[in-house]
């Protein structure tokens, strides 16, 4: 989830279709200037984005072969789609996809709905101490994901947690780290971490709505509720779509929360999420298979995020 903020945002708000922008290159700058301006972007982009992606793609089409003896000498050769066939036949892979699918279907709507409600509340005149609440809600985002997971792991742990002690005291016997609960304990950490961040994006969008719209609506007799539901939410729909896409990407890349909770709960396996599976396979020196898993995760991410954008852009007229 950590690299969400680094995604280029123009990917999710495509330029309006069917309208041509005016040509800008009449009497344009010299090639040298273009290169000078683009290099700071393209050099790291190529080195740290295209090269790794290309390398992973390349690796995913290789297979390991070995010659001679008990240990032999290994080499790689072209294997076509062999690694991909293996990914698709891997039960662990589908189990991990199923797990984060369930995670995403529940956690993403809960988180975004909470974020939306919080953003709308902050945008009303009903709330006092707005600055405090805004900062407080955003604060968890400033905590690195691993640290957040470690903090929560203390709250979940039956040996150390005051929360568990308290619940035990009133007769409840919660097992936050049990086989059925641990996925939701991880989801809770993600929600805690990211709700404020999503809220802030939605809140910024709300801030940019011109006040005249509200005045006009009030003159027409709209209640606060109607203004929120009929005016604010539709106007900030692009932000909601954007946060949803970020959340879908984040869910598919889920790693640090379950990886940390794994330290104290044996109910998180080494193949709990697709990224954890890829890591486990790579640790076993099967880099080619790990590359294929990564490519499949990337393709699923692309399909889901662009699919969602297409779906919503038709509906919301974006």
């Amino acid at each position, binding site marked *: 989830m950590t690299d969400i903020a680094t995604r280029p945002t123009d990917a999710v708000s495509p330029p309006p279709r069917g309208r041509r*922008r005016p*040509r*800008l*290159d009449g009497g344009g700058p010299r090639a040298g200037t273009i290169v000078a301006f683009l290099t700071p972007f393209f050099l790291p982009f*190529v080195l740290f984005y*295209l*090269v790794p*992606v*290309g*390398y992973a*793609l*390349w*690796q995913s089409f*290789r*297979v*390991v*072969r*070995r010659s001679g003896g*008990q*240990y*032999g*000498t*290994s*080499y*790689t*050769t072209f294997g076509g789609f062999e690694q991909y066939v*293996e990914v698709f036949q891997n039960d662990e892979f589908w189990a991990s996809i199923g797990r984060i699918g369930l995670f995403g279907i529940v956690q993403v709507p809960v988180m975004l709905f909470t974020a939306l409600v919080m953003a709308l509340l902050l945008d009303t005149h009903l709330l006092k101490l707005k600055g405090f609440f805004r900062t407080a809600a955003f604060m968890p985002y400033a905590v690195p994901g691993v640290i957040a997971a470690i903090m929560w792991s203390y709250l979940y*742990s*039956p*040996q*150390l947690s005051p929360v568990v002690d308290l619940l035990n005291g009133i007769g409840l016997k919660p097992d936050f*780290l*049990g*086989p059925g609960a641990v996925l939701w304990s991880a989801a809770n950490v993600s929600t805690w971490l990211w709700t404020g961040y999503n809220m802030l994006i939605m809140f910024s969008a709300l801030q940019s709505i011109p006040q005249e719209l509200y005045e006009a609506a009030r003159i027409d007799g709209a209640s606060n509720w109607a203004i929120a539901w009929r005016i604010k939410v539709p106007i900030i729909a692009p932000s909601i779509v954007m946060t949803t896409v970020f959340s879908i990407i984040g869910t598919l890349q889920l790693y640090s929360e379950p990886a940390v909770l*794994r*330290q*104290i709960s*044996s*109910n998180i*396996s*080494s*193949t709990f999420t697709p990224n954890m599976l890829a890591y*486990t*396979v790579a*640790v*076993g*020196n*099967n880099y080619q*298979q790990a590359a294929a898993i990564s490519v499949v995760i990337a393709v699923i991410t692309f399909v889901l995020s662009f699919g969602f954008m297409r779906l919503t852009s038709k509906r919301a007229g974006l």
Partner: protein
Amino acid sequence: MSNTVTRIRLAVVAAAAGVLVLAGCSSSDSSDKSSGASCEPSKGKVTLQYWNTVNGMDKVVDLWNKDHPDIQVESKNISNDQYGAIGNALKAGKAPDLAQVGYDQLPTLRSQDAFVDASACKTAAGTESKFVPWTWSQAGFGGEGVYALPQDTGPMAMYVRTDIFKKYDVPIPKTWDEYTTAAEKLHKANPKLTMTFFDPNNAEWFNGLLWQNNANMYSYSDDKWHVTVESDKSKQVAEYWQKLIDDKLVRTDLANGSTQMFAAYQNDQMATQLGAAWGYTGIRDNLPGQAGKWSIVPMPTWGADGNSGDWGGSTVAFMKGGKHLYEAAEFNTWLNTDPEALALANEVGGLYPASTDGLKLPALTKGVPYYNNEKIFDVFAESSKKIDTDFSWGPTQKTVNLALQDAMAKAVAGDGKLTGALAAAQASALKSMDDLAIPATAGK
């Protein structure tokens, strides 16, 4: 604008294609045989790279550097990602001269062509008699060469809360049968008290228990690996622990070494721990209030006077790509056999030496105050003599360990049994070896 966009797109595609070509050139690693390296001294001053995970190892290295101006050693601590660092360095062709490698990871790294055979170096090759036999056997792959020198070991023993056993008038068990009986008695006397914990996410520990029962997991014959992770011997161990778990005589909710685990010991909720020699500092430093209450005795055995097990320990391996094998062998031999070096490594890093002379260090023959001034290291030294020398590890041990852990965790959560976990680990061993083109078959 659209022309510019097209041009940029083309440039991106071209760059990506270039990357693919570059990647193609670098990834086909065909390397020559590792055996038969010559061992000649280098001319002039030499600097060796030595990667390890031992705290304070730089002090031991300083001791060497002071007396050997021409063979300087640089120590680098790689404890936050030991095998990641070694694996990446190997892939990049930048491996150090010497690296710390756990016994169970030796075959895995050798299957990546990581080592060089230092048989030609007389100093190193002549140390066979100086090490505990099983360590030499594993470091040399049963006498095939000198790929690594043993450094430390983790002979197992049982840490016991003698006060708890005394309080409930239960004798300290000597066999696994007695261990079950004692567990039943203690739990009956005090339902909050359990004998110990079973951490399903600790395959290394469980492997130590399998080792104790001579449950050898791998052998090689007829150009094939024979995998026997699932065997009668290993199933015996799995069934034993399954019964303890089913009867709720051991806890399954604690991770080894976690704060939670120490909290449970702190609160007198557990009476024993099956640990290794290197674990004596953990108990001592985390449970200072229980000084005098802990004792260390031989681990329970299968039948009277049975074997012991080993959990952990490392070698210092001769890495492929090092240019100064002679000097590396000189340093490695000194590091792991010289009494002064061993004493310092034990003092700063808590290493329990693989060298038989090392076991006679003054620090390892005295009583330890925390443990009632008992000579606890005598117990570990005895344990170390009773460890099966034929036990060996597989070339995909990490993958097998993870598969075993995942399946044991499921079993502990009520989904399957520990014997089933062995079957899962067996299947994982066969599949992972097949993935890496290592010929393997299910052994008898």
